[in-house]
């Protein structure tokens, strides 16, 4: 018993320390998502102009669903990338769709007027679609492939490079 104890006491804290070290080296900002790789939740939302829009009704090969708000500062940072995407890609290939997150249509209009450009944004009353997609906050972007599965999720502001890389990889798969 005593020999056993002599070994055991220095060994016992090792798993606890290893666990602590593992915890400390993890990035707490990166949150898990259960939805990547799964079928994108269907939605039925209204655009800012009052049109009705569903995911199933979109015929683009790739859908980029961007949750944003006019009060969100990082959303301003990614705005030019999204504007550029609407200009570069054809609507039948890539549909850039904004979902307004806890914001008013008036706020969204002011944002678009102030920062220029425009891409289609749908309203999400009650934040139901955001919760369906497991959104933590804005901006968050979901890249939905031709089979309407969520291929990638990007947390935080998008850059043009990230957007282009992800969209092109999905176009390459779908268009082959």
């Amino acid at each position, binding site marked *: *018993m*005593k020999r056993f*104890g002599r070994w055991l006491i220095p060994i016992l804290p090792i798993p606890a320390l290893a666990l602590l070290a593992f915890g400390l080296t993890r990035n707490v900002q990166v*949150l898990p998502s*259960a939805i990547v790789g*799964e079928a994108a939740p269907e939605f039925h939302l209204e655009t800012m102009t009052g049109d009705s829009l569903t995911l199933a009704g979109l015929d683009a090969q790739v859908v980029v669903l961007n949750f944003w708000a006019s009060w969100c500062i990082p959303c301003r940072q990614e705005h030019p990338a999204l504007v550029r995407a609407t200009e570069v890609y054809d609507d039948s290939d890539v549909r850039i769709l904004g979902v307004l997150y806890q914001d008013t249509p008036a706020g969204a209009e002011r944002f678009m007027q102030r920062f220029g450009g425009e891409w289609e944004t749908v309203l999400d009353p009650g*934040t139901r679609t955001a*919760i369906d*997609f*497991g959104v933590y906050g804005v901006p968050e972007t979901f890249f939905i492939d031709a089979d309407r599965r969520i291929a990638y999720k990007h947390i935080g502001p998008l850059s043009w490079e990230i957007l282009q890389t992800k969209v092109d990889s999905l176009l390459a798969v779908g268009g082959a």
Partner: protein
Amino acid sequence: MRRLAPLIILYLMLAPESALAGPQEEGMSAAEVDQLSAEVAAQLRCPVCRNQSVLESSSGLAREMQSVIRERLAGGETPKEVRAYFVGRYGDWILLKPEPKGINLLVYLLPAAALLFGGVLLYYRIRRWTGATAPGPTASLAGLEVPDAEPTSADAAGGLSEEEEEWIRQQIGSHG
């Protein structure tokens, strides 16, 4: 007792579950729905505040999540199904108390195992400190041999000296 311990732990973990299951399918009063949705909201992590439950948080998202919980319960879903919906969106992370399965089981079983181990260790220590040598039904616990029962290891463990043992033998001899 060793066989019972995991069962007791499992029962304690599952008890609130069974207490919650049942009446919601037959249609509940508004007060019952409120009560049940508060219980479910208290078990879910607010995605914005992270260390608060959906019930405690005053963030917009948490309030909308509470509405979703209430709607789903009123629509006939069980608390378990409502939790499963959020886990499907946000992953296990959304549960403040992890489900007792897979690696999560460690969280529930390790403290009990440590307590058991500590208890056994303490038992033998105390036996040695008090110099107890009597073998008997308590000679083995948890499959461990009692070292004190063997004279050689008792000596090594700082038990009785040879003089003391000789004196005890004389005492026993004089009585028998």
